[in-house]
């Protein structure tokens, strides 16, 4: 990748500033050391900054029709999987799957959004858009994990929670909130990975985990590029511009501290080689679980809460 002269000049300027900062006596210690970290991050960023086209490529790949979905990964990563159905109250939401899985020599509870491959399955799965029943099913499975000491693995892949009348009547917002609260409280280790579209509240509902990962070509965003364009540009056709503005790609999410790691995909994207994609995903999930499993339950919970409590940037 060749760098433009202006980028090089900018990098040079930052490096000079960095050198100066190191020599500064610590007059206002906290402020100065904060500046160092920020500049270092900025330096890394210049090298890694994705262009508008690269961001949009992520959006397209994240939604690619051949991209592996949750059950494709389950089939490849797990030695056995028993799917659990129903929320024990009202219905079974096919847009989310939950079950007991044998993963890396132990039992885990796996929860993930599920999209459909062909038009029939897509309709059946509601395009991966969850009803409150789906979050209740997820919660039931996670409670079971907590009771039996099984780690929780979640795979996030949804355009968003379903925006329908009955979904509202059944308390869509409330269940998204309670599902997060339950994850905040889990005594067992948890890891989440965004494997496709991490669409807004519907995604974050099952992503309050000890470690949050993101596949290289996944996107994680507060609103779909089309939705953002429709509201802010008053034209859904400006989706590409919107995506470039709110930066839903993995590199930016990592930089902002939203995800802990980026899971590599086979060259060309996960859809070109599902087996290899699954192998790489399993590898990362194992690594993340290994990081948090040794911690004592209360300490892990405290750190998880801290991780999310410190999210965001503001001026004071």
């Amino acid at each position, binding site marked *: 990748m060749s760098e433009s002269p202006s980028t090089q000049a900018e990098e040079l300027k930052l490096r000079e500033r960095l050198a100066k900062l190191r020599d500064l006596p610590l007059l206002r210690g906290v402020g100065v050391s904060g500046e160092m970290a920020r500049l270092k991050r900025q330096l890394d960023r210049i090298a890694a900054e994705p262009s508008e086209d690269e961001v949009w490529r992520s959006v397209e790949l994240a939604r690619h029709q051949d991209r592996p979905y949750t059950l494709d990964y389950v089939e490849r990563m797990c030695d056995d999987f028993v799917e659990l159905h129903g929320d024990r109250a009202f219905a079974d939401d096919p847009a989310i799957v939950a079950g007991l899985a044998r993963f890396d020599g132990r039992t885990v509870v796996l929860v993930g959004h599920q999209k459909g491959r062909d038009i029939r399955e897509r309709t059946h799965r509601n395009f991966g858009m969850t009803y409150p029943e789906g979050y209740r099913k997820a919660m039931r499975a996670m409670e079971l994990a907590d009771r039996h000491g099984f780690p929780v693995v979640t795979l996030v892949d949804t355009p968003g929670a379903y925006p329908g009348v009955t979904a509202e009547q059944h308390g869509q917002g409330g269940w998204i909130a309670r599902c997060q609260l339950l994850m905040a409280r889990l005594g067992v280790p948890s890891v989440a990975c965004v494997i496709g579209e991490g669409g807004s509240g519907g995604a974050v509902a099952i*992503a*309050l985990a000890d470690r949050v990962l993101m596949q290289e070509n996944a996107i994680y965003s507060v609103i779909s590029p089309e939705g953002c364009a429709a*509201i802010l540009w008053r034209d859904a056709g400006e989706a590409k511009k919107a995506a470039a*503005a709110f930066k839903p790609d993995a590199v930016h999410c990592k930089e902002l501290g939203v995800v802990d790691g980026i899971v590599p995909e086979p060259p060309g994207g996960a859809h070109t080689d599902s087996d290899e994609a699954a192998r790489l995903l399993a590898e990362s999930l194992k690594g993340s679980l290994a990081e948090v499993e040794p911690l004592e339950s209360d300490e892990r919970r405290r750190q998880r809460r801290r991780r999310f409590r410190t*999210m*965001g*940037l503001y001026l004071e």
Partner: protein
Amino acid sequence: MEGRIDVTVENREAERDHDGKRHPNTCPRCHSHYRDDELERTLRVCPQCGHHFAVRARERVAQLADRGTFAEEDTELRSHDPLNFFDLRAYKDRLAEAEVATGLGDAIIAGGAAIERRPCELAVMDFAFMGGSMGSTVGEKFARACERAVSRQVPLVCVTASGGARMQEGILSLMQLPKTVCAVDELNEARSAFICVMTHPTTAGVLASFASLGDVIVSEPGALLAFTGPRVVQQTTREKLPDDFGLAESNARFGHVDAIIPRAELRPFVGRLLAMFSRGS
């Protein structure tokens, strides 16, 4: 000339509103029009039909808290523009404009207060500041309010009014959902009560995070409380919407709120709840 009331300002306002926008003091339900001081006296409830007008954050504090007890905190907190966000206008400009227009640092104010002589932590959102949207600053101020409630061992009362997460902060605004949820978790763990008063509108990201986690959820009549608003639901699903779609009354029928309390009764009602949760006395 002295002593005469200058009405030209009001007239200019009226003219500007001929583009179909209603004057803020005209009741959208029965079209009665009021002077500002009239509405202030009635707690911004239409005396004709009972419609609840929007209440700005500081006025809400005056309505709810005992006089002179509100001690605002974190007044210096301001939103940052981490993405250098620019749509049709720069986010920085929108922020500056909102601050000038509302006199607020962001879409929430919070601090210690007493309601009906019961001490509490009070956080109030303001829809007039960028639609009450939740970015890092709103999330942070709410989380700090939770922490103060824990350290002072008092309940938290939060009055919500929000269109959801603040898109201009991208993924960091979405992260305010788990952040505020974690703050409520700490509140719960410390057994500090959380009373949430949902006012019009409480939607999307705020409904899908801390607002729905109140120990007691109170709402004002006619408030829209929905994860997805009626317009988007209609456009994406083409479903026929019930007349009361997403309204507080519908939410009460489906079991999502504990009580719908008219504004005039809100203060004594919250006072009663605080008494219920008070330890010892």
